[in-house]
């Protein structure tokens, strides 16, 4: 584990009242974002999540309240200097079209007064960090990049000054779903290396579940509906609003929180493409299976031999048999695995290694078992949580009763007079 390089952000009674509006856009938000964590602000549009974020780097000046970063009050710092220490990434990348990729990334380090050579090294380093070849990309203009590549450069620019805090305002909102998935994976990887404090705004709850160490569900005026881990919010939404926002299929979403590596990958009957039917039948018997997975010469899954085909045998099996349509890696989420199993149709999916080679299979039964276990564990945690709340409430009730009793006792004369 690398050291935590992030900083703790604290919002206290933070309020923004735009002139000419009846109610506050952000109303007395109090929140602590722990150092080194990725916290997602999620909520419907108009909930004030972006406004709340923009107050942290003071693109929007708060009406009242406090913001501190690492216990330093930042509401009285020079906003320009403050922003150079807070990374900022936005939707549509926000790259300046008249500057090259390299110049865009170099902006903050240069403003911080770094030497020319240090800035140049940093640009190369950051391009590699976000998965772009620096020789090929640093002298390109943004419009020569695809949407996903632009967004990567946007993230690189936000990281350029090595800030402890990163603000990301729907950074992946405008790219296609497949690219968005890649970018999310990259962000998770980068965060594993860097341990920044990241505030990430999105209206996509699935994105929040995938990325967040913690999620803040916001309702109108930036009131916090729930602030907890993704697991807790999915299994134990605080109220109707959160439940509605989590949406249908919370159990399915729970699947995105676990990966194939977390469940049992079982060995399966396999045979080579050129093996004769006797070898294939032997393989099937060995595993007590009535199906066999055929592998090519580099041990990549190619075709499923179903029960009928194994029994019937005959020439040309390797050509006519059901082709392997989808495989998963150990990094795939269980949701991806379930999806693949359903498309494959045989109740199981092949798991492959980094070069596509066969490792084993995950079956629908294994998956169902894990889901049951996960949900059971979540429910257990939720019950404990509820018990705790109940206990707290009990303590409060007793205290209130005592206070009430005390007040009654303090004014006996009044009641006598009445």
């Amino acid at each position, binding site marked *: 584990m690398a050291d935590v390089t992030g900083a703790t952000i604290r919002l206290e009674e933070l309020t923004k009242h735009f002139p000419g509006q009846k109610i506050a856009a952000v109303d007395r938000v109090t929140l602590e974002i722990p150092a080194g964590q990725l916290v997602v602000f999620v909520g419907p549009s108009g909930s004030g999540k972006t406004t709340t974020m923009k107050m942290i780097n003071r693109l929007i000046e708060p009406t009242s309240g406090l913001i501190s970063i690492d216990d330093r009050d930042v509401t009285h710092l020079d906003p320009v200097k403050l922003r*150079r220490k807070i990374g900022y990434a936005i939707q549509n990348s926000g790259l300046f079209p008249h500057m090259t990729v390299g110049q865009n990334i170099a902006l903050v380090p240069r403003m911080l007064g770094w030497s020319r050579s240090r800035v140049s090294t940093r640009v190369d380093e950051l391009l590699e960090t976000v998965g772009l070849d620096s020789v090929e990309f640093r002298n390109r203009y943004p419009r020569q990049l695809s949407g996903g590549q632009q967004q990567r450069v946007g993230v690189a620019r936000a990281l350029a000054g090595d800030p402890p805090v990163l603000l990301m305002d729907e950074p992946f909102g405008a790219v296609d779903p497949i*690219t968005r998935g890649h970018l999310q994976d990259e962000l998770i990887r980068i965060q594993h290396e860097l341990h920044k404090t990241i505030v990430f705004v999105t209206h996509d709850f699935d994105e929040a579940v995938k990325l967040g160490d913690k999620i803040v569900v916001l309702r109108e005026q930036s009131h916090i509906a729930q602030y907890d881990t993704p697991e807790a919010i999915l299994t134990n939404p605080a109220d109707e609003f959160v439940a509605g926002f989590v949406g249908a299929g919370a159990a399915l979403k729970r699947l995105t929180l676990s990966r194939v590596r977390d469940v049992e990958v079982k060995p399966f009957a396999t045979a080579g493409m050129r093996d004769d039917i006797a070898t294939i039948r032997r393989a099937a018997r060995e595993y007590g299976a009535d199906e066999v997975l055929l592998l090519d010469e580099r041990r990549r899954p190619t075709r499923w031999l179903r029960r009928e085909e194994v029994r019937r045998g005959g020439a040309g099996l390797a050509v006519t048999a059901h082709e392997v349509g989808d495989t998963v890696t150990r990094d795939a989420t269980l949701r991806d695995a379930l999806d693949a199993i359903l498309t494959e149709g045989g109740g199981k999916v092949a798991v492959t290694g980094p070069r596509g080679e066969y490792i084993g299979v995950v079956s629908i039964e294994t998956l169902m078992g894990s889901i049951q276990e996960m949900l059971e564990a979540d429910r257990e945690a939720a019950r404990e949580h509820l018990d705790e709340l109940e206990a707290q409430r009990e303590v409060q009730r007793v205290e209130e009763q005592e206070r009430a009793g005390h007040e009654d006792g303090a004014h006996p004369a009044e009641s006598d007079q009445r």
Partner: protein
Amino acid sequence: MSGGPVRPVGSAVDAETRAARPPALPSRFGWTDFVVMPVFLGLVLLVLWQWISHQDLDPIERVTLAWPNVRRRIVEHIQLTALSTVLVLIIAIPLGILLTRRQARRFAPFALALANVGQATPAIGLLVLLTLWLGVGVKVAIIGAVAYAVLPVLSNTIAGLEDVDRQLVEAARGIGMSMPGVLFKVEFPLAVPLVLAGVRNALVLNVGTATLATFVNAGGLGDIIQDGILLQRTVVLIVGSVLTVVLALTVDWLASLAEQGLRPRGLRNGG
């Protein structure tokens, strides 16, 4: 961009980052940009020269069309155009920037209305009015030209700055640029194509207005045309007119080259 082998970057590279190399940025200029207009203007001048050589010129025509006189008028014309354009830039660009700042934005409609009055007034009428007030001379010609040409540069500067994507301005502030930094590193460079279009427009207007300088005794090619009219010498009139047209087209051509050459790289053509 090198054509060398793609270097492996470990697991970070996925299909998307290896996407096919996009086409290189098109060159700013095509060879036709440098050839078509000069050849055309050269031909026009050649025809004019041939035609005059075969004319039987009387003494008055000979004096008026003598090279030292013609050259003097051309130089005056260029000077008037250049000076008034520089003044337009000095006035209109800073004013346009000022009028897009938050504190002064509400004055923009008034300034544009005023500039519009300058341009809507026929240049000749403007010059006459100025003469009644300030007398004749180069100064008056230049003031007239400036009043006439401020509008395109001012309105294009304002439009160019207003057109800049608000998201980019906010991104610039968000990463910690100071206000002047945002203006000079982001807003203005992105407004440059529109500003340049305005400048080109102003230059062409000024070439035209300089033709009227003769009425306030400030020289220029208008003098030759005026001589042709007053002395009833068609040859002189034609030479003056053709030279004015050739000069105007030359200036416009040079301005178009500057427009293409000064546009920041990386911006789309037409944006």
